[in-house]
């Protein structure tokens, strides 16, 4: 279907494309091992976050949590804010985003263009400064509504009801699903759906490993695991550093013509790891992974060109996923 009543109805239904050049070679007669990319950058605002944004707003409207003209307050490092800004505009809400100041300039410009207001929390102050900023805002505006993507079941449900069924329809022979681990919504929702339908499927997480500056914690007890996270849905979890993420992001565009953001490079890195294991073990594999967004928003980092060392340095201290 290629005609929709509004942009909101055009969310999801993204293409799944084969990666014949990046898929590992197998010996003649050996079972095929193939990589497939789910192009989530083809969503209305250019990222996978359009799905949860739409589901969270709809759920809040249906439950009465959101009423026309309300202000939504959401802490976000980028894509969710952009997606929410579009949904809020079309559904008649005001959006205020709290975000760290060390995100790319394009994200800020996009948010403002879509009509969101932004409150920055200083990167240098670490998480404690962000906590202080957020507490202050919440105290000043008790009527503002939070959707809270890290603990909102509608985030995971968006993927259970859309991403999962789309993948099964397009790739019934799927053996592995690989996605990024942030709010955990994509992996929890898609993973639960696929585990119910596909025997033996492996759900694999790729977690970005940022530079030291980004963590900004003072002790272990300040750590956080999103409320949505359920480890039993996952089979494996990889930590992918900046260098590997950049290398794979460049390979995506150089080898397969897919221009993606760095989190997608991290996801490809984990997908290639499981694909190569399947080749080594002589097992058939159809590995589907998520292209979370396009590369446009990250061009200003300069990390698409120059040496890998330069790129690593350029992304140090940035939230690249």
């Amino acid at each position, binding site marked *: 279907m290629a005609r929709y009543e509004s942009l909101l109805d055009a969310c999801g239904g993204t293409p799944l494309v084969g990666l014949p050049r990046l898929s590992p070679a197998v010996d003649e007669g050996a079972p095929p091992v193939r990589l497939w990319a789910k192009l989530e950058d083809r969503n209305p605002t250019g990222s996978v976050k359009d799905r949860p944004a739409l589901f969270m707003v709809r759920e809040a409207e249906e439950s009465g949590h959101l009423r026309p003209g309300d202000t939504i*307050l959401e*802490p*976000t*490092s980028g894509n969710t804010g952009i997606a929410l800004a579009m949904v809020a505009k079309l559904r008649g809400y005001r959006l205020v985003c*709290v*975000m*760290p100041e060390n995100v790319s300039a394009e994200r800020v410009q996009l948010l403002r263009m879509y009509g969101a207001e932004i409150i920055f*929390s200083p*990167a240098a102050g*670490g*998480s*404690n400064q*962000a*906590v*202080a*900023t*957020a*507490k202050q*805002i*919440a105290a000043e505006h008790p009527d503002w509504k*939070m959707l*809270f*993507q*890290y*603990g909102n079941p509608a985030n995971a449900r968006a993927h259970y009801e859309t991403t999962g069924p789309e993948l099964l329809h397009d790739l019934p022979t799927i053996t592995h699903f690989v996605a990024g*681990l*942030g*709010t*955990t919504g994509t992996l929890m929702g898609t993973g639960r759906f696929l585990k119910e339908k596909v025997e033996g499927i492996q759900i694999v*997480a790729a*977690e970005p*490993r940022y530079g*030291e500056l*980004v*963590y*900004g*914690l*003072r*002790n*272990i*007890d*300040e*750590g*956080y*695991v*999103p409320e949505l*996270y359920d*480890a039993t849905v*996952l*089979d*494996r*979890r*990889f*930590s*992918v*550093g900046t260098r590997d993420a950049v290398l794979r992001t460049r390979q995506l565009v150089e080898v397969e013509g897919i221009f993606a953001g760095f989190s997608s490079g991290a996801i490809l890195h984990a997908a290639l790891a499981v694909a190569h294991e399947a080749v080594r073990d002589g097992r058939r594999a159809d590995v589907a992974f998520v292209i979370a967004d396009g590369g446009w928003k990250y061009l200003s980092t300069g990390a698409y060109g120059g040496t890998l060392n330069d790129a690593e340095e350029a992304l140090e201290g940035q*939230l690249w996923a």
Partner: protein
Amino acid sequence: MAIEVRVPTILRSYTGGSKVVEGSGDTLTALIDDLDAKHSGLKGRLITPEGGLHRFVNIYVNDEDVRFLGALDAKLNDGDSITILPAVAGGALGFAAAAALLGPRPTAPATTPDSTEG
């Protein structure tokens, strides 16, 4: 058996400031015991009094989460690379702000890493 262990900033008070230390052991438990012998107190930050891996600590063997490799019983080999990281997801600052707005999650006291396990 030499195993390289990467230590996050918040735990370097136990390693004299070292970012990378070496240890040995054929399981993760054995490795942590060996590390604790050299860097007293480190084990208490990684393992709970009940004997499990601390909820907000992630340990990776060659970039893979040990919780999916047998957790503390995970088998280790010479030359393996171990990374210890605090649990963060989706950007530390974003979720910290979110947690503050929601409120119910107990906020950690502003103490040094030397404070006792909560």
